[in-house]
């Protein structure tokens, strides 16, 4: 496998192009399921925000807008570097692509570190989901814990997706290190790229809905 330039086409496909198109369709379908998975949380958010607009407005002030903004920029940058990486491997420059993907991984780590700082702060203040909510400032509002339930569920599930994405990027990096990719075969790079953009996109919605209301 070390310096293989051509990747064997699986037995049930007629051509490499057919295999590539099938894989891409598969990943797009998978993204649809991801959107529906988050869709449930977005619906719950919409319903409760519609029912308790003042509470959500008040509670969102207790999220750190600066860190949230920085994280948004970090994730957008990671998407850019991922896109550049895919473009490079398409242009048959796998070494450059490797570097771009390393950069993407770096941004992902930054995102999680910042998220960790935010979470720790929330734990400290008692801004916790549901029954564990102890924050004195919002004690009078019985619905405030709901906002933080949604905050932790939505950002938590998103965080898990970031972790999975990092694992996938690491896997692609290992294969790229072995010299498996070229303009002739780069399916995994393309697929992981598509997935990573979705992870970014979900955050683009989460950020204003949670941090910037009111």
């Amino acid at each position, binding site marked *: 496998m070390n310096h293989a330039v051509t990747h064997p086409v699986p037995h049930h496909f*007629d051509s490499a192009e057919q295999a590539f198109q099938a*894989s891409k369709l*598969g990943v797009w*379908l998978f993204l649809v*399921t991801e959107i529906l998975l988050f869709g449930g949380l977005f619906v719950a958010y919409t*319903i409760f925000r519609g029912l308790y607009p003042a509470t959500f407005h008040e509670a969102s002030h207790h999220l750190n807008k600066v860190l949230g903004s920085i994280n948004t920029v970090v994730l957008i940058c990671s998407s850019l570097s991922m896109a550049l990486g895919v473009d490079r491997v398409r242009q048959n420059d796998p070494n450059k692509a490797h570097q771009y993907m390393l950069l993407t991984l770096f941004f992902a780590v930054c995102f999680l570190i910042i998220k960790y700082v935010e979470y720790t702060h929330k734990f400290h203040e008692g801004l916790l*989901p549901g029954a564990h909510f102890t924050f004195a400032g919002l004690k009078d509002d019985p619905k405030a*814990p*709901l906002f933080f339930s949604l905050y932790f*569920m939505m950002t938590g599930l998103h965080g898990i997706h970031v972790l999975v994405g990092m694992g996938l990027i690491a896997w692609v990096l290992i294969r790229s290190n072995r010299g498996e990719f070229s303009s002739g075969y780069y399916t995994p790079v393309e697929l992981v790229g598509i997935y990573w953009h979705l992870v970014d996109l979900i955050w683009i919605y989460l950020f204003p809905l949670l941090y910037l209301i009111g």
Partner: protein
Amino acid sequence: MSGHTEVGNYLTHPKGFWSWVTTIDHKRIGIMYMATTMTFFFIGGIFALLVRLELLTPGLTVMSADTYNKFFTYHGAIMVFMFIIPIIPAALGNFFLPIMIGAKDVAFPRLNLASYYIFISGAALAVWALMAHGADTGWTFYTPYSIRTNTSVVLVALGVFVMGFSSILTGLNFITTVHKLRCPGMTFYRMPLFVWAVYATAIIQVLATPVIGITTLLLVMERVLKIGIFDPALGGDAVLFQHFFWFYSHPAVYIMILPGMGIISEVIPVFARKHIFGYKAIAYSSLAIAGISFIVWGHHMFVSGQSPLANLLFSVLTMFVAIPTAIKVFNWTATLYKGSISLKTPMLYAVSFLFMFTIGGLTGLFLAALSVDVHLHDTYFVVAHFHYVMMGGTVMGLLAGLHYWWPKMFGKMYNEWGGKISWALIFIGFNMTFFTQFFLGYLGMPRRYYDYPPQYAGLNMISTIGSWFLFAGFLLMLIYFIRSFFSKEKAADNPWGGKTLEWQIPSPPTEHNFHETPTVTGKPYDYGVVKL
């Protein structure tokens, strides 16, 4: 791989246990799914028999009320999540969908195997939780009771989450296979209707299952972290759970029935020796059912405090489902007209499907009508309706398919007389068990109750006796299916005279299905030119 030399069939080549558990052959994975889900059907069936046995007489018959609550939960959860959702798509669909479109395998064979193991893990988790700690919520896990009960809802819900993931991967695999792996000449309008039905099912699997994923995840979090989204005591909304749950679980009943309808569309033209009537109408009605399935979930909440406007809309939308469904039934019936009908076992099941599914479907309209539903909601009428659709529909379709494709899958023919007697037992037993329940429900007996007043005793007894006929029928079927394996006689490659691709290859098929990629030039049920 092995070139064009004569190779063994998929069952024996390659050999050995290890070659089975690591196989990426869609046919073997289909068989593994079939063995697993049929085992769950047996277990779920035993619990159904026990539940019916308890209801034989009023008051305590054989078990305590707590045990009864657990047993109907086991029956429901096992039958829904481990049998009827996966059985047709994952077992028969896996086996036949690629062959019917002239492909060597599904688009992602390794993912296919992974989805099997994911299913097994989820099922094992759920079954272990059910057996070790029990669950008494019914298969619907309604909050707030599911948050408070001290049974193992968390593990069962996680099991459902994991099995859902497997269902998603199967659906994703099938959609991609249908789009990317059809053989030359296999246009969409030349695909067998079973493929259309499984394709429509796959769309629902992909679009609806993630919602049950997030719902079960939230339910788990509700119990573990007390997040309160579904808990009124913490500011949440219990009816929201019902909305989430049915947003998946209503489309899910079409995941259960559509593939069954697909099998009926295969069996009827073959055993009536006629081209199917209204091919396009049947194909598109599958997609229409899939589409409408997403906008009717609210009919489960007519008495849960939904707004009157929502009730009205959901009631009307629910009735829309009847249109594509009736299109199918009329077209199947029209196919029979002036056909040369042969009442072999698969056809007996297909014709039973027409009767019993129609009863199930029409009583669904009763329940969709708002004022009638207020009276019938949560009574045995709903239980009877559901079982007429699921057992009278899906299971009849499954049994039709199982008998129809048995010689293709195993190269052996089952005993036709055994098949007919078993069919008669099942047909009589089924109608005894469930037709009585329409009356029980109409007379006001609520579902899931442990006890009932003496005026319901007669009908309950008939229902329970019917369940024994059903059991006898299935036992006989198990016996003649097992016996067929030991029969010396080989089944013919095309015993029924089918025109679809799976009948044009050897029984059982070889590892890669076709020696050469086939080229399709005509329609799948072209009996105008068949020579007999």
